[in-house]
C-alpha cells in the first residue's frame, strides 16, 4: 500500500499536539472554556506606569512572571509553557528529544528599557554620550544581556530545552508570523525532509515602547474604558486593535508518522497560502487584490472549493481598515457563499497577540473543529453595515464545522492563510 497522500500527491500534514497561553489563561481547557463563554482577557495595564499613554489597556499575560522582566524572557517562558502542553498531548519523541526541526515565530528582539537604564546607571561619567555608554556595555557586567537580546536567543533556549533537530528557524512576518511558522513546518513535511516539526509562535510584547510605537502609528484602540469592550471586530465603532500576549505551539507530523506511532490526530493542515501586498508599509491595497490572492492560493493549495469552507477564523483585528479589507477579500473569493460562512474573531477576547496570533488562532480553529462550536466575537453591538459577514456575535454558536480558514494579515504586506480540517480530505 502506498503512503496516504493528499490529492496533489504530497504527504498529509496532521496536528498531534497543541498548547496555548493567552490573556484568558494557560492551557487549552481554560482558554476554550473562557473563549466560548465570551470572556475578555483585556485589562488596564498594571505592569508599568501608563502615564502619558493614549492606550492604557492590553491583553497582557500577567499570571506568568519572569524575573528580571523583559518581553523577550516572557516570550520565551510563554513559548515553553505552550510547548510543554503540546508535547504532552502529542507524546512524540521523549523528554528533551523532539524528532524534528523548530520553526519559531517571535517578535523582533532588542535590548529593553529596564536593561538599557541599568547600564546607564553604571556609566561613570555624567552627561555621557555613545562612546562612554559603550564602555559601560563592555565592562563585563552585562554579558547576560548579549545572551538575552540576540535575535537567536529564544530559539536557542527552546532548541536546547526540547531537543529539536538541526538549526532552528526564528522568523518574523509581523502579524502573520504564527501562520508562517506553521507554513514552514508544513512545507518541510511535504518535502519529506521531516516527519515532524515543532511550530511555536510567541509574543510577550506588552512593554511601554512597543505600546508607544503602535500608538504612534494610530493602530491601537483608545477606547480604554472599560478595557474589555475595546476590541470590537466588525463593529461600526471599532477604532483599532488591542495589543496582547500569548503563545501557541503545534506538533505537526506526516499522517504516516502519526498513524505509525498510534498518535491521536487532532486535525489536518489542509492548505497554506501567502501573497505579499506591495501597496504600502502599513496599509493594504485598496482593491484587496493581494488578500484575495492569498485566500485563493490557500484554497488552491488545499484543493478545496469555496462551499467546502464552513467557518472563517478571521484576522479581525478591530482596526477600521483590516476588517473592511478582510470582508472585501472574502466576498471576492467566496462570492455568493459568503453569507453562509459564520465568521468570528478571537481577538475580540484575547486581543491581538501579534507574532503569536497565527498559531493561537490556528489552535482555536482546531478546537472549533473538535468541539463543533464557534467562539463568539464579543462587543458586537453595532454591526458595520459595510461588513455584512455572518458574524458569530457575542454568543458561541454550535455548528457543523468540517473546514476552517484562518487568516493573518500584517504590516509590511504580509498575508498568510491556513485551511484546517478535522479529517484528511
Amino acid at each position: 500500500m502506498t503512503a496516504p497522500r493528499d490529492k496533489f500527491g504530497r504527504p498529509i500534514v496532521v496536528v498531534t499536539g497543541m498548547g496555548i497561553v493567552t490573556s484568558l489563561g494557560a492551557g487549552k481547557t481554560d482558554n476554550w472554556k473562557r473563549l466560548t463563554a465570551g470572556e475578555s482577557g483585556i485589562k488596564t495595564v498594571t505592569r508599568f506606569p501608563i502615564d502619558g499613554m493614549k492606550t492604557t489597556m492590553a491583553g497582557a499575560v500577567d499570571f506568568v512572571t519572569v524575573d528580571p522582566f523583559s518581553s523577550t524572557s516572557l516570550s520565551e517562558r510563554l513559548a515553553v509553557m505552550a510547548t510543554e502542553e503540546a508535547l504532552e498531548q502529542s507524546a512524540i519523541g521523549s523528554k528533551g528529544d523532539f524528532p524534528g526541526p523548530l520553526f519559531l515565530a517571535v517578535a523582533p528582539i532588542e535590548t529593553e528599557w529596564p536593561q538599557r537604564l541599568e547600564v546607564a546607571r553604571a556609566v561613570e561619567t555624567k552627561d555621557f554620550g555613545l562612546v562612554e555608554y559603550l564602555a559601560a556595555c563592555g565592562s563585563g557586567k552585562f554579558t547576560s544581556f548579549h545572551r538575552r537580546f540576540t535575535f537567536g536567543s529564544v530559539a536557542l533556549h527552546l532548541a536546547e530545552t526540547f531537543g529539536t533537530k538541526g538549526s532552528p528557524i526564528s522568523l518574523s512576518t509581523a502579524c502573520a508570523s504564527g501562520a508562517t511558522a506553521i507554513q514552514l513546518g508544513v512545507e518541510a513535511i511535504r518535502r519529506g525532509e521531516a516527519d515532524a516539526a515543532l511550530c511555536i509562535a510567541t509574543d510577550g510584547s506588552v512593554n511601554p515602547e512597543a505600546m508607544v510605537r503602535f500608538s504612534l502609528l494610530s493602530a491601537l484602540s483608545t477606547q480604554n474604558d472599560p478595557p474589555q469592550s475595546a476590541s470590537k471586530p466588525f463593529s461600526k465603532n471599532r477604532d483599532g486593535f488591542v495589543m496582547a500576549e500569548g503563545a501557541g505551539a503545534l506538533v505537526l507530523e506526516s499522517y504516516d508518522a502519526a498513524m505509525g506511532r498510534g498518535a491521536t490526530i487532532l486535525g489536518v493542515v489542509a492548505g497554506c497560502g501567502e501573497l505579499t501586498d506591495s501597496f504600502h508599509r502599513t496599509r493594504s491595497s485598496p482593491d484587496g487584490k493581494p488578500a484575495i490572492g492569498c485566500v485563493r492560493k490557500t484554497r488552491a493549495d488545499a484543493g478545496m472549493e469555496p462551499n467546502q469552507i464552513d467557518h472563517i477564523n478571521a484576522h479581525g483585528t478591530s482596526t477600521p481598515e483590516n476588517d473592511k479589507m478582510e470582508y472585501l477579500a472574502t466576498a471576492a473569493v467566496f462570492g455568493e457563499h459568503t453569507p453562509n460562512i459564520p465568521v468570528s474573531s478571537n481577538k475580540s477576547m484575547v486581543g491581538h497577540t501579534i507574532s503569536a496570533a497565527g498559531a493561537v488562532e490556528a489552535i482555536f480553529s482546531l478546537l472549533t473543529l473538535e468541539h463543533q462550536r464557534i467562539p463568539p466575537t464579543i462587543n458586537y453591538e453595532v454591526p458595520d453595515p459595510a461588513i455584512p459577514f455572518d458574524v458569530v456575535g457575542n454568543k458561541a454558536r454550535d455548528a457543523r464545522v468540517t473546514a476552517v480558514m484562518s487568516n493573518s494579515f500584517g504590516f509590511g504586506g504580509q498575508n498568510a492563510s491556513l485551511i484546517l480540517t478535522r479529517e484528511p480530505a
Partner: protein
Amino acid sequence: MAEPKEVWITGIGLLSSLGEGLDAHWEALAAKRVNVDEQRIAPYVIHPIAPVSFDAQIPKKGDQRQMEMWQRIGTYAAGLALDSAGVKGNQEILSRMDMIIAAGGGERDLTVDLAIMNADAQGNLPSGAINEKLMNELRPTLFLAQLSNLRAGNIAIVHGVCGTSRTFMGEEASSIDAARNAVARIGAGQSDIALVGAAHNGDRGDLLMLYQFGGFSLKDRYVPVWARKDKPGFAIGSAGAFLVMESREHAEARGAKPYAKLTKVVADLARRKESGALTRSLEAMWPQLGVNDEHPVLITGATGAEPATAEERAFLSEHPGLAVRATGTTFGHLVEAQFPLGLALAALSISRGALYPANDPTGFEVEKAGAPTQIVVMGAGHYQGEGMALVEAVK
C-alpha cells in the same frame, strides 16, 4: 523522493564598504582594498558603507525617507540582484517570486535614547516619564524602519517582489537558514525562483551596544581576521548581499545565464557550551557537501571573535590544501549578511574563472591557481549557529 532540482544562482546584488556592483567588487578584491574607519566611533573599528546615490534603485525619495540605512542598503542590493538576473520590472516573474530575507532590527533614535538614559542616570526620570518622552520624541514612522520584516516589505514596495515574503532572524545563522530553505523549496518544486539575502549597516551605535555586552568589538586598530588572536573581536561592517536563485528549468526557459549553481546548504546548532563543539559540528557537516575538488576553495565568514574563530581554525587546519578567504578581513562582520556575501563572492569567482587574491599577512590564506570549480562557503556565528554551502560551476 524525486531527485531535487538543480538550483542556479542567476543574479547577484552587492553593495558594501567597497562600492557597488560586481565589477567594482572584483577590482577592489584584486587590489586588496579595505575601507575601514577607526575614528568615527573610536575606539570601535567599523567599515562604513561606500558613498552611494540610492536613487538608482530606490527612485522615490518618499520611499528612501521611510527607510533607515539598513533597509536602504538591502533594498538597493536587492534591486541590483534583480537587475543582474534580468528580472527587474518583469511583473510576471516578480509577482510569483519568493523572498527569504535574513534580518536583525533597525536603527534606534540614539539621540532620544541617550537623553532618556542620561535623565534617568541623574535621577531626573520620574516613573512614567519615559512614556511621555517616547510618545513625544519618537518619529511616528520610525517603528517601520525598525521592524525586522520591513526590509522585505520595502523590497516588495520598491521592486514588486510579491510571491511570498519570509524574514528569518537570529544573527549569522538566519541567512544560512534562508539559503538552506530556498534551496530546499526550489529543489522540491515548492518555488521556482527566489530572492535571498540580507543587509547590514556597520555605522550603528545601537548594534555596538549589543556586541559590546559580550565584549565582541574590535577596538583601537584594524587588523585582518587571522591576526586577531591576541585581540579578538570583530569590526561591524556594511553591506547588502542578495542573490536570485532559481531552478535550472526556470532559468533555461527564460534564457537566463547562471553565475554558478548552489548544490547544497547545511546548517547546525552546535552546543557551544562544550569546548570543541563548533569544530566537531563543522567536521560533521563537511562530508555532507560532496567536495571532490583536490584543491578546493573555502570562503569563510569567520568573525575574529573567540572562541569561535579558534575552533573554526582548528577545523580548517584539518583540511590542508584549502585556499581560504575570510570575508571579515575585507568587509568586517556583517552578521546576517555575511553568509550571502560569501555565496555572492563564491558565485562571482566561479563565473570569472578565478579566485581573488589572498589578503592575509599571516600567510594562512594561500593563493589559488586556475579556475575554481567548487567553492565552499562557511559561516560560524560569533556566538551560535553555523553552516556551509557548496557553490559549483554549472556543467
